[in-house]
């Protein structure tokens, strides 16, 4: 610094730590590639075997479209599981989210609630089904819906708490000044501010839960997962192909409808101005606060 004549360049900042982290990461990656129990020359036959699977699925005898009603019914089951699971998650996470918000509950309570939510999120739905809900509800869609619901509480509770922490304190003070009791303050001062965003989260979670519910069947928790697994195990690829197409189409449809409703809730009915530009590009408006 002191030697700073006009012409000398400042020393480049040290990248030693970053380079060390990069080197360490690279070593782990190389180790993983070398030591993993995969015969890498299998990759050469990979396009062939995937092509063969697709051939047997779609081309050899064609898809078995007579299987469509059965696959559709199973997918509908998955949608019901996701729906009920999302409702369970929404109902439970709303009060929990309020308790998890520092500005509404005390610091200690909110910390405890946050930690519990972190714990719930750590277990995937499939593990919850096996450990908690199949023992209670037996095999079937009810166990699936309960697992989806509990897992949703983990994420929805956290998001709700974060939204509640970001509110404008003005309305809260106003309700208090007008003599509102604590519960009334939450109902009239906080809830109207956060509800649109929270409902949007619920819908977003529903989209995620559709994907979860589509696979819970592999452990016997109902829905289309069972169908896909059985048809593949019995090598009825013509039927498995139909089931997979049903999953893809249903998931995309639900995403589209739910995404549209979300945008309407966040932006209001005025957002339905359709111009050519809107059709091409959909910016991430759902994240913008109302």
């Amino acid at each position, binding site marked *: 610094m002191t030697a700073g004549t006009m012409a000398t360049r400042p020393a480049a900042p040290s990248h030693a730590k970053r380079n060390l982290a990069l080197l360490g990461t690279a070593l782990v990656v190389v180790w993983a590639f070398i030591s993993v129990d995969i015969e890498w020359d299998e990759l050469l036959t*990979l396009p062939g075997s995937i092509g063969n699977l697709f051939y047997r699925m779609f081309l050899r005898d064609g898809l078995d479209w007579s299987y469509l009603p059965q696959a559709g019914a199973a997918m509908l089951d998955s949608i019901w599981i996701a729906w009920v699971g999302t409702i369970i998650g929404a109902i439970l996470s709303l009060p929990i989210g309020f308790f998890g918000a520092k500005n509404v509950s005390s610091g200690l309570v909110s910390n405890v609630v946050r930690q519990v939510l972190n714990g719930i999120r750590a277990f995937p739905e499939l*593990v919850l089904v096996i450990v908690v809900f199949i023992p209670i509800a037996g095999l079937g869609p009810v166990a699936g819906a309960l697992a989806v619901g509990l897992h949703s509480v983990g994420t929805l509770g956290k998001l709700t708490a974060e939204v509640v922490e970001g509110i404008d304190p003005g309305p809260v003070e106003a309700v208090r000044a007008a003599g509102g009791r604590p519960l009334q303050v939450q109902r009239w001062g906080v809830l109207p501010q956060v509800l649109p965003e929270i409902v949007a989260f619920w819908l977003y979670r529903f989209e995620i839960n559709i994907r979860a519910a589509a696979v819970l069947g592999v452990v016997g928790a109902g829905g289309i997962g069972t169908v896909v697994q059985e048809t*593949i195990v019995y090598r009825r690829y013509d039927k498995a192909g139909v089931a997979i197409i049903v999953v893809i189409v249903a998931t995309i449809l639900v995403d589209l409808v739910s995404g549209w409703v979300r945008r309407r809730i966040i932006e209001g009915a005025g957002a339905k101005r359709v111009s050519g530009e809107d059709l091409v590009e959909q910016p991430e408006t759902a994240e913008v606060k109302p």
Partner: protein
Amino acid sequence: MTAASEAGAGARPEKPPRSFAALAGLAAFAVITWFALSEDFGIGLDIGELIENATRGVDIWAEFMRPNWGFVPQTVDPMIETFQMAVIAAVVGCAVALPVSFLASRVTSPNLAAYLADRGVLSVVRAIPDILYALIFVAAVGIGPLAGMLALLFFNIGVVAKLLSETIDGVDTGPIEATRAAGGTGLQTSRWAVLPQVMPNYVAYSLYTFELNIRASTVIGIVGAGGIGQLLNTQRAFFRYDNLAVIIIELFVFVFVIELFSIWLRRRLV
């Protein structure tokens, strides 16, 4: 606003009527929920029955409470395999997702056809859940970590490409104009004007998918795609809840450690 002033002081302004859309939405919600809960059409959720049966799981849970710690050595190799699959899939998946996301953003996509085609493929890739990929690849290449790695790979491409293409949509356009004005081609613009802006996000998303992979690889193993999930499934089939408890506790710790490490690494790299 004006209604209140017209009505004069003291009079309450009229409540705005409930919007038709909101009422229709509520009605649709009620009908769908009724279908979903009903015995005949939906899943047949009976809360009374559930409460009655809540104690049915007690015996099983009692076994969960006695983890068989002698089982730990047998879990080491599958756990390492899970880690390896997660690393490889994250590295390859993020590498593939980089060009894919540049094509999937209007800012950097060379033309509308490439943009729409890429978007279309991506929405199909993202609509297939990870376990479904695992089922498909187990059918194609057989049981083992290769199927699991491939399943995670596609899952990662979907996640990173979606997040990164949305980030690219939101970049500052100033550097892009500057590069164009200096005569940069489309590719050069992406490289010098866009990539430096999204690089921190890209690194963060890569680490995030790695964390997702650790969680996901526990479940894709259930259908035979290698790693700890496969072990979990065999123990489940034998009703060895004491061994299952060990696996689940290990997973919990493992995910926690990986998360801490990932946070540390993110701070170093970004």
